[in-house]
């Protein structure tokens, strides 16, 4: 006996994501899901962004890590509300985890919420968190083959940040290859080249943020 279902496997996560999305719309909160490999500079970019924009916008961060609350403490030191989710082994955040964390940071009173996902270029991509947009960060020392190796993650990005461009003179990195590979799977997303460490190119990122904060959608 065969039962035909054609049922979405992650429907439970998608239901929770829809609730988060409704929450963001109701409270006019712009929410970005930040995805990258470990060490690409997610926290560094957020720290700098908070320091530079905290007078203009109220910002909160939901931190996802397998262990430790190091990142949440870095974010708090930069001047934003932060809540740490320790996933205890899980390689990505789920929409339900985000739902609980939103309460912990009183997200309804914020302009901008960043969800810093667990460092991983594969798994987070399959889990909608209800975010308004997705930021995918690639850093120069990781190598120029990453967009070709992880096409699904780059295809789902609203904006792509190429971080650590101050290291371009020191490591082999074919920038034109990266841009071409990204263009194949995601011709719409802008690619912003910057260094969160030196601040080079950071204004284009702030312009992107301001523009989307004004209309509250990616």
């Amino acid at each position, binding site marked *: 006996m065969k039962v035909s279902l*054609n049922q979405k496997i992650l429907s439970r996560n998608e239901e929770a994501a829809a609730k988060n999305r409704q929450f963001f719309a109701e409270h006019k909160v712009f929410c970005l899901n930040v995805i990258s490999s470990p060490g690409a500079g997610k926290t560094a970019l957020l720290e700098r962004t908070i320091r530079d924009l905290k007078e203009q916008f109220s910002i909160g961060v939901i931190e996802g890590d397998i262990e430790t609350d190091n990142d949440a403490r870095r974010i708090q030191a930069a001047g934003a509300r932060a809540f740490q989710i320790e996933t205890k082994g*899980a390689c990505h955040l789920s929409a339900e985890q985000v739902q609980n964390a939103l309460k912990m940071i009183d997200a309804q009173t914020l302009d901008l919420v960043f969800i810093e996902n667990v460092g991983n270029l594969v*798994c987070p991509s399959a889990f909608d968190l209800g975010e308004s947009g997705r930021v995918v960060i690639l850093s120069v020392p990781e190598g120029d083959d990453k967009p070709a190796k992880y096409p699904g993650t780059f295809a789902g990005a609203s904006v792509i940040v190429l971080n650590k461009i101050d290291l371009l003179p020191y490591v082999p990195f074919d920038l034109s290859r990266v841009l071409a590979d990204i263009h*194949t799977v995601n011709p719409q997303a802008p690619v912003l080249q910057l260094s969160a460490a030196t601040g080079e190119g950071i204004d284009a990122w702030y312009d992107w943020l301001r523009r989307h904060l004004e209309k509250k959608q990616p």
Partner: protein
Amino acid sequence: MHETVVAENVLRTILEHAEKLKARPVRALVSCGQFNALNEEAMKFAFETAAAGTVCQGMLLQIRQIPLRAVCRPCRTVFELNLMTPLCPQCRSEDFDIEPDAPLLLEEIEFEDKQ
């Protein structure tokens, strides 16, 4: 290893149907698009682990990978996109729109026929 969560969700649904039908599941078919990056080996391993000790233990899990499709802008050919050589096979154009990736679906479950 997001396969673990996918496997747990698949198992939960199969168990619900098995309970309702009072039947033993023997096979299930999962399909997914290329961007979902579901690894077949990891998925089967995660499912076996999750299913151990349940009525689903030992059942067959099939995974159908659905390739990406694209539409060529100049000649309107619909083709399976190979990301290694992203070209329209008809006119060799690099100008195409990728169609939405196939969702992660539990397509069907087969149960043992009752005697």
